[in-house]
């Protein structure tokens, strides 16, 4: 289904250098029409740089950027049908909210319909009653929504959002996440959203590009990225995980038998490119493990409880495999299902779902 869709932004072998520092190392990615696409990565990985290159504020050192098949390198920012929601909002302080939203429409020579259209946009972000205020008379969340309305007003083909929610408190942030997603569906505009918050990325995106140190680490749907991380960086950055160094001993029924140390073995779905004898990394999601006091599953691993940590919705249990590595297990704080708290020092068995553990290719 995704294959059939038109490509809105195509970044081809894009390199960005500042002097002899390389901020982006040959990035290629295609963003589909109508997609909610997220650039996710830690601070300094080059997310803003890539966004600014698409907006036209930075030139591309090597490679190219295509908008619906057309190279846009030579177009200055004011000629690109792409709008940005800036991290610090960048609202014009001397104009009212309404004038701010009307600004791009006036620039496009649509002065006549500007007022009506700006009014509609303010309605969309539920700020109609603040139309005549100045930006400094609004709260952070309201300013954020004005910035959004202003960027959406000229109906850009692509909307770029650079950590637009980072200045908001948690509650407002969650509300805005839902609202943004809603607006994206309603308008059908392609969103490129930048964040360093993996949870935010997983909640909102159709697809995510995980970046680190100027390189693309993995590109996929939230499910793919979470369930099938390609490498240590992605597995570690997205969600929580137990990262183990293992060696692949054998294959049985399409599953790789991994040796964890201390005589413990775990069967994991085989992955192309990993053969017998390879020393590789294994990612085991804590929420897909559970503890029992009897060995029901023949593959369960024997361990001792080291510590229980209460984190509200969850209880994290750290166990020590006898002569092997430690594991963190997360159980819902609930009386239903397998959730049961074992006291420190008690012997337990560690069980996992079939997809609990993934071999990391690189």
């Amino acid at each position, binding site marked *: 289904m995704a294959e059939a869709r038109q490509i809105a932004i195509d970044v081809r072998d894009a390199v960005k250098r500042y002097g002899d520092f390389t901020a982006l190392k040959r990035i290629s990615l295609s963003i589909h029409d109508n997609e909610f696409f997220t650039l996710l990565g830690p601070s300094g990985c080059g997310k803003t740089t890539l966004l600014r290159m698409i*907006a*036209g*504020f930075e030139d591309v050192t090597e490679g190219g950027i295509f908008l619906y098949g057309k190279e846009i390198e030579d177009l*200055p*920012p*004011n*000629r690109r049908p*792409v*709008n*940005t929601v*800036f991290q*610090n909002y*960048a*609202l*014009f*302080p*001397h104009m009212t909210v309404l004038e701010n939203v009307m*600004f*791009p429409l006036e*620039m*496009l020579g649509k002065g006549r319909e500007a007022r009506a259209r700006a009014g509609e946009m303010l309605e969309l972000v539920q700020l109609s009653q603040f139309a005549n205020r*100045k930006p*400094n008379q609004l709260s952070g969340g309201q300013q954020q929504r004005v910035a959004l309305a*202003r*960027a959406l007003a*000229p109906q850009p083909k692509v909307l770029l959002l650079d950590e637009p929610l980072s200045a908001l408190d948690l509650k407002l942030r969650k509300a805005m996440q839902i609202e943004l997603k809603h607006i994206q569906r309603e308008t059908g505009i392609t969103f490129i959203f930048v964040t360093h918050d993996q949870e935010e990325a997983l909640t909102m995106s159709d697809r995510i590009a995980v970046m680190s140190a100027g390189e693309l680490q993995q590109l996929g749907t939230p499910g793919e990225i979470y369930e099938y991380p390609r490498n240590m960086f992605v597995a570690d950055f997205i969600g929580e995980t137990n990262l183990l160094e293992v060696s692949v001993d054998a294959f049985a029924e399409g599953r790789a038998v991994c040796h964890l140390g201390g005589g413990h073995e775990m069967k994991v779905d085989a992955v192309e490119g990993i053969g017998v004898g390879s020393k590789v990394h294994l990612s085991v999601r804590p929420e897909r493990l559970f503890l029992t006091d009897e060995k029901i599953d023949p593959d369960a691993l024997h361990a001792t409880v080291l510590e229980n940590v209460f984190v509200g919705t969850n209880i994290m249990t750290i166990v020590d495999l006898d002569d092997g590595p430690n594991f963190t297990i997360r159980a819902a704080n609930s009386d239903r299902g397998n959730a049961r708290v074992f006291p420190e020092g008690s012997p337990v068995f560690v069980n996992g779902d079939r997809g609990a553990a993934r071999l990391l290719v690189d």
Partner: protein
Amino acid sequence: MAGGAATGASVTTDTYAEARTWLLLPAWAVLGFFVLAPVGMMLVYSFLTKEFRGGVIWEFSLAAYDQFFFDRGLFGDEAPKIEWTYINIFWRSIWQAGLATVMSLLIGFPTAYFIATRPEKVRPIWVFLITIPYWVNLLIRTVSMKFLLRDNGPLNEFLMSVGVVSEPIHIINTNFAVQLGLFYSYLPFMVLPVYASVERYNFTLSEAAADLYASKWTTLRRVLLPTVKPGVIAGCILVFVPSLGSFLAPDLLGGAKNFMIGSLIEEQFKGSAGNWPFGAAAAMILLSMVLVILMVFARQQAKSGKEAG
């Protein structure tokens, strides 16, 4: 910590108010002694009778103002007509100071913008470079300018040697020379406040404007200029007001024909040919004009401030 908190609590609002009164006393004293007293003296003198060898006779008279605005003939017995001589000098002064202000703005704004967009570390160096010429006394600077601009001076020699002109161009003793002199005298008063406000300008606003389809020119006009307006207005006032009352540049560069208010006033107090009450009256008229201009600006500032606030 506890001691500090206790002290803090014992300082009441009253104590602060009292402390403020005492702390402001020196400022009020200086202001009273050096500003209000001289202005008051001028005001009084402008209503006195002139003494022929300079000085005043302590007798109330409106003669000075009358002389400024009305022409009653050589012997003072004709029907009063409007006296244009002084009004024209005032008008010319406003015009000259206005043009000097416009020139300072046209040159000063790009300069300030240039400095404000340099890397943070080198900005103070640029500001320093701008102010260096002003370490030299204004009189000396104006005299050197006269030397530079004269018919067979370095500027004309240079222009002729590169073949731009075949005859020396007359700059000295023209209105233009006066404007140039005023412009040069007060340029930093334009550059510095404009620089201060452009430096505080959030350049993301320009990026946002470009992103929202504004051209460079529109961005300047609709986003940058309105945002840095307070600095521009301050710069204009700081150039216009001293230019208006200036007498060095008009005297040295403009010659007798291009007389300005400053020179008119100066002359009334020089030697025995002067007329103190008349000079004082002219100064009072100048002062009132400046105050009116400042009040109009202040009114506007307050209005736009209220809109933004």
